């Protein structure tokens, strides 16, 4: 189990532990969202929603089925995609938990913007892909893994993995070039 999975398992046991989990992942998650949206206020609210959902789901985290960061960023991707689909920032988990509105001052907004790598469009384009295409691209292009291994993991044929990678990359390029 990774450090982060330990941290997440610990996070089930109390508020202090969950706060520690939040502190550990705050910057990466904020960075992910500011890359995706280019906006610090949106990044902050999407981050808040992501952690609220993580809190709701933390009891279900199973360290034998995946890493904590993958689990958390899975939630983050979902929140992002859902927000784009509905054209508003999701706040349902925060509402359920009774969490108040976040207000950013200028310094904080600037700090968040500095987390951006400047390549947010690509992050967003990838995040908005259908799940099976995104997973295939992550495994092949980003992890550099071999097709047979990916096919085995995704329980599909090698040809299908190739097709998903190809179509996914085409969709990403199209989106980056200005398409939808």
């Amino acid at each position, binding site marked *: 189990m990774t450090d982060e999975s330990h941290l997440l398992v610990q996070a089930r046991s109390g508020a202090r532990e969950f706060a520690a989990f939040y502190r550990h992942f705050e910057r990466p998650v904020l960075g992910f969202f500011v890359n995706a949206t280019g906006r610090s206020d949106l990044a902050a609210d999407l981050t808040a929603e992501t952690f*609220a959902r993580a809190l709701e789901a933390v009891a279900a985290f199973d360290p034998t089925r995946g890493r904590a960061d993958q689990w958390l960023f899975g939630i983050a991707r979902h929140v992002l995609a859902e927000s784009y689909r509905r054209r508003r*920032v999701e706040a349902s988990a925060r*509402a359920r938990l009774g969490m108040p509105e976040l207000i950013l001052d200028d310094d904080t907004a600037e700090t968040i913007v500095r987390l951006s790598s400047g390549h947010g469009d*690509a992050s967003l384009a990838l995040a908005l892909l259908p799940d099976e295409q995104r997973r295939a691209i992550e495994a092949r292009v980003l992890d550099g893994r071999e097709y047979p291994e990916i096919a085995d993991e995704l329980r599909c044929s090698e040809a299908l993995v190739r097709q998903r990678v190809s179509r996914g990359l085409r969709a990403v390029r199209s989106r980056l070039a200005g398409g939808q």
Partner: protein
Amino acid sequence: MTILPELERDLFNAAEERLRPATTAPHARPSPPPSSVRARLGRAAAGLPAILSVAVAIAVAVIAVVVLGHGHQAGPRATASGASGGSSRTELIRALGVLRRPQTKADLDGLERAYPRRDTIVSPPTRYPYEMDRRLARVVSIPAWRAEVLIAPVRFESSPTSGGPEGVLLSGWWAGDRFQLPGRLIGSPATSVGEFLARGLWGGPVVPGLDVAHGVVRGPDVEDGVLLVPDGVASVQLGRVTLSAQVAGLSTKAMIAALATIHGSAAVHDNIAAFQLAIPVYAGRPPHWLGPGPSLLGAHWPGPGPAPKFWFPAVGAAVQDTWFDASGHVVSRTTTEIGVTLRVQMAPAANH
């Protein structure tokens, strides 16, 4: 220090309710949605698709490094929970001769350098918050490296489960031109007493000559690591090294091959075995740089300027190590989680 302390506080409050024992925990406490912010953000989100603009396709990798690249930060200290119960501060002091000597001014000076009482350095996240026993902090010098290693007992605020609340901390800093912030490159690994007694505690890697901005190692192509071991161990030999955590963008097979080249042995002084290892070379398909910028994770070059040819990620590994006593008899064969830096040749950067 967090960027959004209000959010941390709100989550803490929500978690107090949520993670309370089941008899009282409301799983879906009704509450009005934060309508004002939703309206505000709704308007903003409506304009979001407009931010999609031309970018290079290779930058796709950004997200995966954020999403998956965290693995290499998921450091080698993942085993605290594996310790046996019943370990205690007394047991630790009994096992570490260096803690039994009187505290000197050098110890206090070193402690203050590493962990100033008024610490303005934002420390990296720790696995478990802990409180250090400053009275028992001891510093061990490694003159050949111009390095110092701090050893201190700790009490975990949130116990690493079966490892018990008592543990030991190892931190270090390297003096000279390329001063490394204490608690950063070498990490501030802390583990439970039981885990330490069974497996030792590794600090590292530190590449003293690493110039991250230019992607080169100036001087010897080596990395340093230290292993804290109990009394009675006079030398340590590193055996087979296996990969503990994947790194996004790197081939697992090539990483394993690189790690297989690691070997070494070291004598123990003041409970510390100091290893200087040749930096393993990753020979897989060269990954791409993801671009310059203040990235926290993954293969970003710090910029400005051209992308360096090499990247030096730290990866988590497990080494099968053998501990010997002064007579050369085997004291223990164990497996220790370590951190190792790899040399990775990068593909040329795309134009961003």
